[in-house]
C-alpha cells in the first residue's frame, strides 16, 4: 500500500479538526476537534517513522499522547467549571477577555 495514503489521511483528519475548531461553538466539540488534530499529527509521526526506518517518530507520538491526556484533564476541568457558573458551554459566550 502506498505510504502517501497515510499522509493524505493525516492531512484530511487535521483539516476536519481545524475546521471543527473554527466553526463549532460547543466547547466539548471544539475540544474533541483539537484531539482529532493531535491524532492526525500522531499518524503523520508514525508514518514518517516508518518511512525513515527509525523510532523517533513513534517516540514523538507517545509524547503527544501524554500531552493530550494532560490537556484533556485540565481542559475538561475548565469547561465543566465554566458550564457550572454560566450554564453554557459555548465558546462564544466566554468572550470577556477582549480589549
Amino acid at each position, binding site marked *: 500500500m502506498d505510504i502517501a495514503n497515510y499522509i493524505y489521511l493525516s492531512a484530511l483528519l487535521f483539516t476536519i479538526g481545524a475546521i471543527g475548531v*473554527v466553526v463549532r461553538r460547543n466547547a466539548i466539540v471544539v475540544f474533541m476537534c483539537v484531539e482529532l488534530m493531535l491524532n492526525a499529527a500522531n499518524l503523520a509521526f508514525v508514518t514518517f517513522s516508518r518511512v525513515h526506518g527509525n523510532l523517533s517518530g513513534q517516540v514523538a507520538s507517545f509524547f503527544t499522547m501524554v500531552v493530550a491526556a494532560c490537556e484533556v484533564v485540565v481542559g475538561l476541568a475548565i469547561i465543566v467549571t465554566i458550564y457550572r457558573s454560566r450554564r453554557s458551554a459555548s465558546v462564544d459566550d466566554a468572550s470577556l477577555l477582549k480589549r
Partner: protein
Amino acid sequence: MTTSTSLVYLIALPLFSAGLLLLLGRIADKWGHIFATLVSASVFVIGVMEFFAMQGREGEARAATQKVFEWISVGTFQVDASLLLDQLSICFVLLISGVGTLIHIYSIAYMSHDRDRRRFFAYLNLFIAAMLLLVLGDSYLNLYVGWEGVGLASYLLIGFWNQKPAYATAAKKAFVANRVGDVGLSLAIMIAFTQFGTVTFAGVKEGASGASAGALTAIGAMLLLAAAGKSAQFPLQSWLGDAMAGPTPVSALIHAATMVTAGVYLITRSNFIFDASPTAQLMVVIVGAITLLFGALIGTAKDDIKKALAASTMSQIGYMILATGLGPVGYAFAIMHLITHGFFKAGMFLGAGSVMHGMNDEVNMRRYGAIRKVMPITAATFGLGYLAILGVPPFAGFYSKDKIIETAFYAGGVEGILLGGATLLGAGITAFYMTRVMVLTFAGTKRWDENAHPHESPFLMWAPMAVLAVGSVASGFLLNSGNALVNWLEPVVNESHEHHSEHFLPPLAISAMALVVVAIGVAFAILKYRTVPVVAPENVTGFTKAARKDLYQDSFNEAVFMRPGQKLTAGLVKTDYKVIDGLVRVVGWVIQISASSIRNIQSGYVRSYALIMVLGVLALVAAVWMVTL
C-alpha cells in the same frame, strides 16, 4: 619646610564651634556668644604662638606644613588636604583671627538684643574657619574649599536678617556675583591641572617656569576674574554695596578687613603666574586702577554711611590689586596696605556701627551731625581711622598707600604716569569722601530724628574700636620700619630688591604731591558741606546722580546680563515645552491612535483567534513553499 602638628587646630576649632552652636540650637543661646569668642581668641593665640615659632626658625625652615589627610588619590592625581603656613599666610592668620576676635567681642554687645545672636556667632566662627582654610591651604583646590566656604558664610551673614526681603535679595546678589568669580577660579584650577598635572602651589610654581605664555595668561586672567568676584573689583563690584545689608560687625570683618581681600591674597599667592605673564599683570593693574577710581567716585555721593564705607573698601582694594599687578615690588606693599586697611577700615565700620547703635539704626548721614559731642570715643577712634585712610603721616595709611603710589609712578613710561596719576587722583577723591563722612557724621549741627537719643556705646563695643584705632595709628610704622614686611615676605614673592635709581621723581616729592592732593580733597569737602540739607538735594549734577546709582553698574548688569538672561531662559523653557515635549507628545499620540485601531482585533472570541492562527500557519507554509520552490 618644617612639619607641624598644630596648624589643623586653627581651622578645626572654629569649625567645631560653628557646628556645635548650630546643632545645639536654643540650648546654647545663653553661652554661645562667649564660647565662640573664646574659640576665636584661642585661634588668635595659636596664631601668635606659630608666629613666634616661625621667628625662631631660619630660611627655608620658616614655612611649616601639615598633611591632615589624603583627600583625592586617582591614578597619578594626588591632592592631600595639606596646610601651609608661610610668611604670607601668617600675616593673614594674625589679621583674620586678631580682627576677628575683636569683632566677636564687639558683636557680643552689638547683637545683644537680637534673639538669634548664637546663630550669628556660629556663622562668624564658620567664616573664621573657612577664611583660615583659604589662606592655609597648600594647593589651589584646598584654597577653593575655603574660597567657597567664605562665600557661604558671607551669604549667610549678609542675609542674617532675611526676614527683610531686600536683605535676602542682597545676600543672593552677593552670592551670584561671587559665583561668577568662582567659575574663574575653577577654570584656572582646571587649566593649571591640564598644564602642570598638579594643583599645589609648589607644583604650579615649578611648572610655571616652563609653561607657554598663552597658558599662563589664561590662568592669570581666570585668577583675576576670581579675585574680581571675591574682592568686589570691576566689573563684578556691584554686590559689595548691597552686602551692607548684613549686621555691621559682618561688614567690618568680612566686607572690609578679610574676605574681600582674598583676591589680593590669591594674586599674591600666584605671583609666579603673574610675574611670568606681563599680559595678565597688565589686566590686573587696569582692573585695579579702574576700581580704585570707580569706588572712590561712588563713595562721594552715598548718604548711607555703610555704603560710603563700602565704596571706600572697593577703592582701597583697587589700590591693593593695582599694587599686585606691578610685579615683585608691589606684592609686599599690597599686603601692607591690606593689613593697615584691615585695621582702619574695620575700625571705621565698627565706629559706624556704634553710631547706628546709638541712633536707632539710622544709616543716613544726613540725619546725623554733631555726634562727636555725644559719642566722643567713637568720634576719636573713627577719626584716627580717617587720618589713616587719608594717608596723613605718621598714620598707617601713609606708609602703605604712599608706597603703592610710589610704586605705580615707578612702573615706568606712560604706564607709570597713568597709574601714578590714577592712584594720586584716587587719594584726592578718598580724602574728599572720607572728609564728607566725617563732617556729615561727627561735625556740623544736629539733624537727628526726634526719637534719636544717641549715647556712647558700651565698653565691649568701644574697646575693640580703640584697639583697632591703635592699629590704624601704629601698624604702618611698625610694618615699614626697616622694611620689616618687605623682608619678611621676600621668600614668598621673590622680591628682587630692584633699586630705582634713575627716577624722575624722588619718593619725597611723590609723598608731598599725595599730601597736597589729599589736602585739596579735604578742603573741598569741608567747604562744600558747611551746611547739609536733611533731604538729599535733587538738583544735582549728572555726575552725582550717576554716583548715587553706583555709576549705573547695576543698570548695566540688568540690561546686558539679567534681562537677556531671563529672555534666554524663557526662550529655553518655551523650546523645551514646544519642541522637546512636542516630540514626545507626538510619539505618544501616534502610539495611542494606532493602538486603538489595532486592539479591535482582540475580540475575545476564541474561534476567531483560532482562525487567525490557522490562516497564519497557512501563510507561513505558503511562504516556506514559495521560498523552497
